[in-house]
């Protein structure tokens, strides 16, 4: 039962007898307000000697950035610097979303577990992280938790080529040789094969009722085929190890402490929220549904896939969409620990040339675009898993 929007509309129309006059008045007020703001802003900008417009994006930035996914040097333009920030924001958000989802599902399922120890530990995790500001968690991880790591001179070296120290986590860098492209091609071919096989198997099941282990066979194909090509071609890849030279490491792939702290903080914080969504989703499925399926002797794995999940996900997915967009927005806290995300780089640019209006408009545009894309993807996912109600 909902209020009809038209109902409220009608009453609004009733009170504003001369509604049109009122609306024109509001419109006039807005125009006058914006005009006044524009004038004072222009006056203020000239008084402070601040340029306006987006011309600055082409001029030399001169600001060093520690982490960049694309080629960058201080000689590049402000536009490139901002792009580096956007890519860093996207990169850290993307990885954090994946791991937060995995951890969140584990914690959420754990909280509904009949096992007392598991459910209490999950509840402790969720309540602690949800009730402490993310910024405090981030600063704690960055200054305290990472501070307990060994110094760069004496790194923790569990297996060859992996070094963990206060300078970050160094991993071997895989370097592709000739023929590695074929392995990649085999990987994509395997995905295509798995896709068509699944389609065919579904048709077979509808026609004959014979169910093949679709997921298992698809996974096998995707893993085995590229590996086979890899070994037939004689392992066309080598690893470049990081080396300690002087005070720091050279070579290899590095996860810097700022990035790791931000990633870890976002994962833990968002996982607590996703865990709550998973729990409320699972608890929203009436117990009778599971009991009925068990009474019909439906196998446990099928109960989970066909009875429990479709009903739980329609509660979980919309709430999780909100948490994903929050995660992207929360990645802006990078500025507090010095990871060069979009807000941190933009803030530096504002400090240099004072063009706050342009930078803030760019931030808003990028965040809103990312959020719209996430919402669209999640709505699509929701409509895919949605049970069709008859």
């Amino acid at each position, binding site marked *: *039962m*909902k*209020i*009809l929007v038209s*109902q*409220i*509309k*009608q*009453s*609004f*129309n*009733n*009170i504003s007898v001369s*509604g049109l006059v*009122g*609306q024109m008045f*509001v419109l006039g007020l*807005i125009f006058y307000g914006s005009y006044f*703001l524009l004038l004072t*802003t222009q*006056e*203020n*900008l000239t*008084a402070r000697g601040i340029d306006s417009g987006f011309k600055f994006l082409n001029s030399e930035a001169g600001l060093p950035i520690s982490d960049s996914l694309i080629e960058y040097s201080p000689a590049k333009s402000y536009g490139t610097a901002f792009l580096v920030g956007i890519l860093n924001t996207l990169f850290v958000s993307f990885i954090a979303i994946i791991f937060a989802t995995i951890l969140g599902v584990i914690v959420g399922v754990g909280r509904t*577990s*009949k*096992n*007392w*120890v*598991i459910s209490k*530990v999950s509840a402790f995790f969720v309540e602690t992280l*949800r*009730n*402490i*500001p993310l*910024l*405090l968690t981030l*600063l*704690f991880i960055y*200054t*305290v938790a990472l*501070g307990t790591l060994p110094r760069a001179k004496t790194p923790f070296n569990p297996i060859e080529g992996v070094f963990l120290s206060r300078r970050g986590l160094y991993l071997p860098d895989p370097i592709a040789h000739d023929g590695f492209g074929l392995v990649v091609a085999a990987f994509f071919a395997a995905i295509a094969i798995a896709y068509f096989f699944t389609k065919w198997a579904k048709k077979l099941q509808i026609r004959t009722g014979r169910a093949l282990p679709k997921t298992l066979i698809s996974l096998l194909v995707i893993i085995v085929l590229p590996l086979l090509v890899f070994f037939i071609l004689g392992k066309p890849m080598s690893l470049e190890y990081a080396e300690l030279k002087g005070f720091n490491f050279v070579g290899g792939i590095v996860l810097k402490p700022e990035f790791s702290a931000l990633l870890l903080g976002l994962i833990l914080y968002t996982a607590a929220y996703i865990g709550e969504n998973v729990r409320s989703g699972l608890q929203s499925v009436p117990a009778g549904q599971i009991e009925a399926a068990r009474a019909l002797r439906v196998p446990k794995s099928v109960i989970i896939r066909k009875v429990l999940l479709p009903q739980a996900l329609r509660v979980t997915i919309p709430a999780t969409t909100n948490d994903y*967009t929050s995660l992207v*927005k*929360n990645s*802006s*806290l990078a*500025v*507090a620990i010095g990871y060069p995300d979009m*807000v941190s780089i933009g*803030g530096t640019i*504002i400090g240099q040339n004072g063009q*706050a*209006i342009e930078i*803030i408009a760019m*931030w*808003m545009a990028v*965040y*809103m675009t990312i*959020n719209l894309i996430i919402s669209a993807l999640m709505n699509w996912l929701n409509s895919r898993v949605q049970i069709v109600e008859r």
Partner: protein
Amino acid sequence: MTNPTIFVPKPDREAPAQAKGFLHWLKHHVFNGWFNSALALSLIAIIVLTVPQVIQWAFIKATWVGDSANCKTSPDGACWSFIAAKFRVLMVGVYPAAESWRGIVGALVLAILIITTITNHLKGKVLIVAWLLLPVFGYWIIGGGFGLNEVDQSSWGGLMLSVLLALVGIIVSIPLGIVLALGRFSGSPITKSLCIGFIETVRGVPLITILFMSSVMMPLFLPPGFIIDNMLRIQTGMIFFSAAYVAEVVRGGLQALPKGQFEAASSLGINYPKTLYLIVLPQALRHVLPPLIGRCISMFKNTSLVIIVGLLDFLGMIKSASLDSEWLGFETEAYVFGAVVYFSICYSLSRYGAHLEKSDPVLQK
């Protein structure tokens, strides 16, 4: 004639020995299935390995009095005397010491208001008016004027500033959010699109950009000579931010109302403002009370972001206290203390929200 036999039930038999007691509970709630057992055992192992160490650090080997030299003698234990030495700064920042009593008075008034609200001693209009007056009182008791010495806003800080920002932010944003939510249902396309545009824009961007906007961009919009203090600008930004989220919460409450309520009001000839004030809002707001408390928790957590735009709130004071050259190396204590304070406030609020949801028969579906 013999008396008719009356049926006397036998006393219940006790549950079989295997189905009760600690061992039974252990079997069904800890060691149910090999996977759960293994997981539970490893979790227990982690707890047994870490918790005693944490207790050792936090209590047994901790230093409670003295200065940093005392703490250095017991490096395995926490240095709580550091917190004690910094306590005033953490609570009120660089607020003048002679005026510190005003922070305490403010806290007492807040405590009294909270207690009378929770125990239902304050009801109806008095309750609402008392809470609505709180921001005015807060700014007066901390800022001064009207008989009190004025204290510059740049010296407000610590937990006092966090609580003030959050309280004023949420209290002022609730009426604003209600207006925005009603505007979403408005028949006037201009009002409607303005409200939707505002709500969706604010909800689409991080709070930091709003804070940057209030701190860096707002001065550009204001006529020269018209200067608003940085703190007040940030407070304004937080109010607008919170209003957009409150509007979404209130919209949920409006949509949950049966349309018969509205129809009944209009068939009785009650006009729109009265319908809102007497019929729609009391019911809608009752529905949204628990999520509004959730907004209060977020608001309080969000105040920690103001350190990025140069205010020294509770977290800012924790950070700067941990960088004091006299007390170097006690960041852990500072952050743990901060986490405990934030956790206690937010967790009690969330328990109160859950209690409201459980105790209100209207909210039970």
